[in-house]
């Protein structure tokens, strides 16, 4: 075999921490998992019907590269009614294969070798590898528990160098559940504009915001629409993860290049999923409210249980994760998660799967039934009570 068989850049990428944990868990068939990063609802029935109907009608061909025009127009309507932002359906909206494709091609459309991409962590696993694959240089910021894992202006300023180009804003955040409210975003915009940064705003969890106010995008703030690409999708808001459908909205000159990459790699997003998505975004508002209310109940339930067992956790106001701190036990997150799995058969993902600054934390997903949450968290409770007793002895 030749020595240079594989791409050095690819080989050098770290395998996802999630993957490693997944391999351990999948061998344990009787484990209860709180480790899933997707909704526990089935896609609403009327949305599935729309997908089925499109198949029955033989709508089984490619769509235009950008995606169905009707869907792009509905996305524009949605952006207008939820955030007061308008995007040109032809030039400023692109339908992608999940939000993940949007992240990848936005970085590829913008990065020149050595361009720095600022990535607040803990955050979703793909930002760093996608940046590297795009030829950019990832610069991570360790978000802090005491700030409720919100990005602070000083932290951003410290990370900026003359090579800084893109800031990724992953809020509401996976894995911490942190959000950035309007006041938090406002503190960043002067720095962003002064340093001529562009923003990749990953808003896949936008609909799952429990602040009492709806989600605010940085693109809504003065001077920011023209320097922000919003990546969003149908997976989390409409429980459509398996359909693999997302979209990107942003300035035409960036979207034009993204469309080019998308055209060569993907051609177009899955047609059936696009028809289902039209139904979701047009007639799915009630489903979103129902699911959000249900997650919010479970969010409060989990926080309450954590509080009862004395596990410190800031109040996360978005997504469907809580991010408690387990530093008191003097183990790494991974050790803690592994022992919890072995001793109590509960799978919870260690915070370090989402960046080094996740050390000392766990990501608990509450996209589970109350019964499963109750059972898994009681086991977590017995586990930590045992650890505390060991420590005292």
């Amino acid at each position, binding site marked *: 075999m030749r020595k240079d068989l594989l791409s050095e850049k690819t080989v050098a990428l770290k395998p*996802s921490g*999630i993957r490693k*944990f*997944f391999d351990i*868990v*999948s061998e344990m068939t009787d*484990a209860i*998992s709180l*480790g*899933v*990063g*997707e909704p*526990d609802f089935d896609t609403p029935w009327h949305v599935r019907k729309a997908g089925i109907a499109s198949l029955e009608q033989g709508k089984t061909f490619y769509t235009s590269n950008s995606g169905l025009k009707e869907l792009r127009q509905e996305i524009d309507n949605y952006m207008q009614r939820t955030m007061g932002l308008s995007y040109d359906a032809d030039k400023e909206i692109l339908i992608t294969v999940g939000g993940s494709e949007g992240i990848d091609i936005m970085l590829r459309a913008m990065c020149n070798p050595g361009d720095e991409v600022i990535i607040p962590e803990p955050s*979703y*696993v*793909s930002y760093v590898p996608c940046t590297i694959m795009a030829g950019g240089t990832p610069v991570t910021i360790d978000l802090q528990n005491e700030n409720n894992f919100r990005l602070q202006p000083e932290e951003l300023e410290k990370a900026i160098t003359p090579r800084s180009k893109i800031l990724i804003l992953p809020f509401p955040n*996976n894995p911490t559940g942190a959000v950035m409210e309007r006041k938090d975003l406002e503190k960043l915009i002067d720095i962003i504009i002064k340093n001529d940064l562009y923003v990749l705003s990953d808003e896949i969890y936008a609909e799952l915001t429990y602040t009492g106010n709806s989600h605010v995008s940085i693109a809504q703030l003065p001077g920011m629409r023209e320097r922000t690409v919003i990546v969003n999708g149908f997976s989390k808001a409409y429980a459509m993860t398996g359909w693999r459908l997302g979209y990107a909205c942003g300035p035409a000159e960036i979207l034009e290049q993204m469309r080019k990459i998308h055209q060569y790699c993907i051609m177009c997003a899955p047609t059936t999923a696009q028809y289902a998505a039209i139904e979701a975004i047009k007639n799915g508002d009630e489903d979103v409210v129902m699911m959000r*209310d249900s997650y919010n*109940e*479970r969010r*409060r*339930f989990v926080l*309450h*249980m954590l509080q009862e067992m004395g596990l410190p956790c800031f109040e996360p106001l978005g997504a469907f994760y809580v991010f408690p701190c387990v530093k008191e036990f003097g183990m790494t997150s991974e050790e803690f998660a592994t022992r919890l799995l072995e001793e109590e058969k509960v*799978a919870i*993902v260690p915070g370090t*799967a989402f960046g080094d600054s996740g050390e000392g934390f766990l990501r608990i997903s509450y996209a589970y039934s*109350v019964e499963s949450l*109750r059972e898994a968290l009681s086991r977590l409770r017995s586990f930590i009570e045992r650890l505390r007793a060991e420590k005292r002895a």
Partner: protein
Amino acid sequence: MTKMEKQLLQIMENNSRISVKEAAALLGEKEIDVANKLKELEEKNVICGYNTMIDWDKTGIDMVTALIEVRVTPQRSKGFDDIAERIYKYPEVNTAYLISGGFDLMLILEGKSLKQVSEFVTNKLAVEEEVLSTKTHFILKRYKDHGTVMAGREHDKREKVTA
């Protein structure tokens, strides 16, 4: 009705055995407030009772369920209420509705056997003066009841751990 009351009712309807403490946690309310609210809703008869969903088919105990359509003559000044009351007071009658459309009352009956149900219909129901006609449907299979799929809970179709 406040949003909290509505949510509380939905939680109770879904699982009436949930503890006050857990219901309070789900709602983000104080336990005492939830306990008082439940008492109030019970007193107002908004919460009329707490039942258990049982799939008798799985018990081996003989049980048949019948839906009975009843056409009746309403009485002057009393409408349907009087005759409805006379009928629903029979312990055999599990559920009684006044219905729009082709007939007037819909009864749900549970009996040990077809014979027992038909005896009720012929000996007790049909002989009521206001009852014009009845039509009895026997339930062959319950797929879903009160939002619960009788076949059992679906297993989690998701992968165990995902990013």
